[in-house]
């Protein structure tokens, strides 16, 4: 019983991390139906930049964020305006897979060139300790990851709901033509949307760097998991992705402690199948999924 509780607790914490990592993907898809295969590659690009800041200046990895977040925002706007916006609109989903796959390979190659293929890791003092509450151990690095994820998603959500930019972005997500009719510069908004998505990758990358060692090809294992999360959550729904992330994190954690790791990993794909069979638009939110 305590083992299941432990699995549950770890699952919730890991789910928070997944939510942070998947939120950007959901935004890209929502804003412009772009399947962004390169998102995990950007996560690890951020992890490497964090590593550089951490080792060069000896500061806490989170102090890299004031540098990486703006850089990634600008990078995101540039990628959208210079590359994604030029894709033929009638075949956008498929072409964006190819384009961003190329981006992912480019990033992996550049990381390999600059940082070599060696493993890098950031190991902080707090990364190996944990808080024990009623027989359940909660690792500090997971708690930090969860808190950062909650904070980032909170800010993201507030921006989407409260700000003028957020309203414009949501209008662009819901109906681009109508948004243009009421005077929203949808192209620019889409660019900013992409920028915000990559900015979440900057935060996610820093958190990942704390938790796991990485090398240039580390991003591949994340694509499947993160894609599964946004499909289950409902493509384009940031809240849906967050809920699905926590759900899948918990399922993974509990299955891991009760059955085994192979089944736990398979759960992601089982949920994708169930979603596509029962509710193709996704279990949470996903009001727009049936439009494509």
């Amino acid at each position, binding site marked *: 019983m305590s083992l299941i509780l432990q699995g549950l607790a*770890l699952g919730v914490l*890991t789910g928070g991390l997944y939510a942070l990592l998947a939120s950007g993907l959901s935004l890209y898809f929502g804003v412009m139906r772009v399947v962004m295969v390169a998102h995990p590659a950007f996560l690890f690009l951020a992890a490497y930049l964090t590593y550089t800041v951490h080792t060069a200046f000896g500061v806490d990895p989170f102090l890299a964020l004031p540098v990486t977040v703006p850089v990634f925002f600008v990078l995101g706007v540039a990628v959208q305006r210079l590359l994604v916006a030029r894709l033929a609109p009638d075949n956008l989903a498929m072409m964006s897979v190819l384009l961003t796959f190329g981006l992912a390979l480019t990033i992996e190659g550049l990381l390999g060139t600059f940082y070599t293929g*060696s493993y890098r890791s950031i190991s902080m003092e707090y990364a190996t300790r*944990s808080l024990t509450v009623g027989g359940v151990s909660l690792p500090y690095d997971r708690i930090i990851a969860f808190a950062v994820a909650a904070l980032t998603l909170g800010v993201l959500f507030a921006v989407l709901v409260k700000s003028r930019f957020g309203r414009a972005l949501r209008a662009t997500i819901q109906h681009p033509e109508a948004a243009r009719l009421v005077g929203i510069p949808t192209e620019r908004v889409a660019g900013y949307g992409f920028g915000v998505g990559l900015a979440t990758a900057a935060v996610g990358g820093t958190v990942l760097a704390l938790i796991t060692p990485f090398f240039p090809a580390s991003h591949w294992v994340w694509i499947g998991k993160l894609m599964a999360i946004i499909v289950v959550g409902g493509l384009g729904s940031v809240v849906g992705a967050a809920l699905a992330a926590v759900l899948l994190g918990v399922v993974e954690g509990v299955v891991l402690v009760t059955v085994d790791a192979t089944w736990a990993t398979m759960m992601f794909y089982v949920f994708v199948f169930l979603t596509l069979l029962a509710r193709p638009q996704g279990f949470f939110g996903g009001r727009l999924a049936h439009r494509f």
Partner: protein
Amino acid sequence: MARVHKGLAIISLCALGLTACAKTDEPGAAQSPGQQQGAVRIGISLPLTGDFSEPGKGIQEGYQVWADRVNAKGGLLGRKVELLFRDDASDPNRVSSDYESLITQDKVDLVFGPFSSRLVIPAAKVAESYNMVFVEPAGAAAEVFEQGFTRLFYAAPAIADDHYDYLADHLVKLPADQRPKTAAYASLDDPFAQGTAYGLRDKLAAAGVETVVDEVYPPETTDFAPIAAKIAAANPDIVVGGTQFEDAVGLVRALQELKVQPKLAAFSTGPTLPEFPEAVRGAAEHIVSPVGWSATADLPGNQEMVARYKQMFGGEPNEDAANGYTVGQIIETAVAAVQCADPSRACQDKLTQHIRQATFQTVVGPLSFDDQGRPEQAHMIQQYVDGKIEIVLPEQARTAELVYPKQAW
């Protein structure tokens, strides 16, 4: 979904790559009549990108150091050695087509193996079908030797199952009150990593050490805390990880977080890499691993290889580089013995027969092979003692005493 896309994209990229190669290689193929007098061309596919890119590069460097040394002293049979590398991106389909084109289009004289059992098996099938002798640096899983290959040889001291032999013997011989009673095993779903852990598990289980956790996780696993939670609940005397690098670090961190304090912690591969102590901070102390090669060992050509590696690449070579170099040493000795290095069936047959019966002096020690190409020796056991890597087993090679039980991490 993404996997399918990735797979499709990789296949299309491969197809593009192949057609490109076919074009550019035509002029080279046309010159083939003079080949016999030209360089000895050796075809190699390696995982230079993707999952195995790190060890793949290590092997590549080992091959290059070997070729550099051979060329510096006049080549093989007076012919210069030329290495043709292909990148298979850690993809088992691509590794087959790489060797296929190296043998049929580039018409290489010899082939060397890729990295890891998963790529060695498809690669060896191709080499076997063209009757090419296939010495490989990293394919230690039991399956590799059960495919009926007749020209495959594994150029390292031991197959996966025998890596921990010295440690198993040592633990079994401990007095009853010190001997561990329970053991937990966690292994990556990979034939090599599993082989190492299961080799130890089977030997300890036969000696009465109870297996309390036996977990297998897929390569996609990114979260090791729940596995550690299972191990924590069983509270074993020893913890054994059939690991590569990320998972070894992930498991060590997670075991610390969940306050598991075993008397002995053994992990394959990860702790032998120089990045390991930094990645786990102070926790590396007293972790043991099987190791097939040591930079300080006084073996034929070892110091020369280390020096040449430093000169070519800077830094210390690792075990992968040593294994690559070993492949070169075996082929070099065999070619000198049978006086040929060409892709003809007669020459490849002579090389195969020679390698099967001879004993080779290499940087990983003397090597000989059984009928399936398995090496007949065993791995040394290393341990971090006072922050330094020491060889603790077997007795004749040891530089320090095995510390057991280990300090808390």
